[in-house]
């Protein structure tokens, strides 16, 4: 008897579950990465209020696993409708044909205004003339420096050219203003990349089939980089050998550091109060006085729509929503990520801040890294060879030859594919 009753209850439960109100809204799946994936959830109620027929489901993915997960999802045909994606990954996902062509959407959209975006940042989303992503937030590198130290050697606003930069470093070292003039961890390739781009190097040849490392623009920048170690301006240490960047910056171990926007918040939080007003940010120094600033890398994340999505219209609405200047500002307030649109930068939190305007200035002079899927592998060779040269175990000529050779091996498939097309 008991058993029959339980069975009846179970049946009743199943029946109610089936007849229960189904969500009739269109289900839009969005993958957000790391902290951004967490925070975007807070912006969704507003979007759903404006679009009652769409329900956004956010899946949060840690950055460390994101790249593999997105690629695997594509191969396994289980991509979401839209996602956040590091903008340097876009060429790779274009190569596997995972992304939807957004060119017509952008041309027709009233919300996504191409001219409002920083050119270098926008360019990261364009592969062979086709737009595959809309920038969400940006990331680039600028010079962080001890303003007290730089003022003492005559550059209160930071060095503006490479000559001034070298002079500042020479004096810092000669007058013992700090232990090292600049910190450039040897396991980071970004400093070499931005120096090379500042010196006019395209890094790879025009169709991305061979390295351009032995050519004068890159070679010159590489020489400049290695020279900083040779002259003792920079210590040849890797990131893991630096126990506490902030403490060492505060106690005068080094006076300059090339790093990104996340460190604005970190410097404020972690530097002792005595350092207030003693550090500043500046755009990267230019090669010479003919350019306003140096050239930095166009990093950040974009919003993409997957080719396999069945909810592209809803996805486009969502991309438009997140791209609105108002939402860009809201997103900055929630995450500290810098907006990709110029109009969002008029927000007082950014414009009146002492440290962000340097980024605003730098963003006008940023360049995408070479748009080939192999770039990350080539870049890891750059720091590997850069480290060897900085530590003096390899001559710069040998390092550059090795780099070109490595790039040529990695890009062999591209050469073959291009030769077949012809």
């Amino acid at each position, binding site marked *: 008897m008991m058993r029959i009753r339980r069975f009846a209850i179970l049946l009743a439960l199943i029946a109610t579950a089936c007849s229960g109100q189904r969500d009739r809204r269109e289900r839009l799946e969005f993958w957000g990465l790391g902290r951004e994936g967490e925070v975007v959830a807070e912006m969704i109620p507003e979007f759903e209020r404006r679009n009652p027929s769409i329900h956004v489901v956010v899946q949060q993915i840690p950055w460390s696993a994101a790249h593999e997960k997105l690629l695997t999802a594509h191969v396994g045909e289980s991509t979401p409708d839209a996602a956040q994606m590091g903008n340097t990954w876009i060429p790779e996902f274009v*190569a596997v044909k995972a992304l939807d062509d957004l060119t017509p959407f952008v041309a027709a959209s009233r919300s996504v205004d191409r001219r409002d975006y920083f050119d270098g940042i926008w360019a990261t989303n364009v592969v062979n003339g086709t737009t595959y992503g809309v920038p969400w937030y940006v990331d680039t590198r600028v010079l962080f420096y001890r303003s007290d130290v730089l003022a003492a050697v005559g550059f209160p606003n930071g060095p503006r050219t490479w000559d001034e930069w070298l002079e500042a470093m020479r004096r810092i070292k000669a007058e013992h203003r700090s232990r090292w003039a600049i910190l450039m961890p040897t396991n980071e390739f970004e400093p070499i990349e931005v120096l090379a781009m500042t010196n006019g190097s395209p890094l790879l040849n025009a169709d991305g089939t061979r390295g351009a490392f032995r050519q004068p623009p890159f070679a010159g920048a590489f020489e400049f980089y290695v020279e900083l170690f040779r002259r003792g301006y920079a210590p040849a240490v890797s990131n*893991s050998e630096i126990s506490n960047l902030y403490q060492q910056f505060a106690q005068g171990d080094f006076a300059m550091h090339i790093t990104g926007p996340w460190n604005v918040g970190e410097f404020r939080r972690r530097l002792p109060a005595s350092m207030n007003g003693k550090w500043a940010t500046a755009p990267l120094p230019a090669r010479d006085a003919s350019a306003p600033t140096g050239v930095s890398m166009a990093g950040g994340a974009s919003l993409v729509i997957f080719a396999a999505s069945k909810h592209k219209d809803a996805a486009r609405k969502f991309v438009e929503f997140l791209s609105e200047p108002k939402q860009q500002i809201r997103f900055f307030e929630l995450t500290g990520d810098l907006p990709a649109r110029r109009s969002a930068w008029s927000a007082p939190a950014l414009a009146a801040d002492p440290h962000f305007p340097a980024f605003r200035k730098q963003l006008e002079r940023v360049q995408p890294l070479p748009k080939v899927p192999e770039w990350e592998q080539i870049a890891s060779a750059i720091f590997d060879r850069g480290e060897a040269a900085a530590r003096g175990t390899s001559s710069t000529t040998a390092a550059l030859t090795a780099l070109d050779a490595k790039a040529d091996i990695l890009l062999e*498939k591209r050469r073959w594919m291009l030769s077949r097309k012809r």
Partner: protein
Amino acid sequence: MNAETRAALLFLAPAMLLIGIFFFAPVIAGFALSLTDFDLYTIGDIHNLRFIALRNYRELLGSSIFWTAFGNTLYFALVGGPLTVIVSLGAALLVNTRLTRYKAFFRTVYFAPVVTTLVAVSIVFKYLYHPRFGVVNRALGHIGLGPVDWLGDPRFAMLSIIILAVWKGFGYTMIIFIAGLQNIPEELYEAAKIDGAGPWGRFRHVTVPMLGPTFLFVGIVVAIGQLQIFAEPYVMTMGGPLNRTVTAVMLMYQQGFKWWRMGYAAAVAFILFLVIGAATLVQMRFQEKR
């Protein structure tokens, strides 16, 4: 073919079919994949696939990271493997002596690490190894040693992982050793005792030879497991510092799923397959001789 052979083949067929599908087919497919340049571009368009014969292997054997990874893996196996065998044999002897009370309790305690989740304990060990707040360094501090940067120092990183792996794995081999010990007839020990053999003599001349087959089995199982180490360094060090903890499987994972160079990764896998096969063969030969 007579009726008897036919019947035998019929009975063998299901097993052969399963082995064929789940062993021979994947191995052949993996080898075939390793002769191509299957990569990102191939996912986009299958016409971008090329047969490149042994180029993946040539490139691999010429790359320094490959030798680093295999060197690290061998280091791990050659230090961690014997250590696992010694620790587990010791634990088995302890648990198995007649003097020990609460045998079941100790067996369970020693076996417990085996059933824990590898990723979870790797994270826990990461905390234990923390240079400043970790328990290990606190304990060392009390006796005036350290602090040691267990996972950050190139000299210690692999050793730290070996300690974790031994702790995690010895319980399993201990159970096998206990089973082997219990199969040794008591009379042999008694006879040896009468002949005047002390504890060491009995261990050396009764226990060790009688455990021969168990040693073979344990040796092979441990070697196979150790050569495939991946999760511990993946969770704890990501291959660093200075590539000291990049292992063969991790190299395969990086090439295959990070850069999506499937052909190249398959070549790594195939070489690892050969190495494990060779290690197994060597052990079997070695045991046969004894």
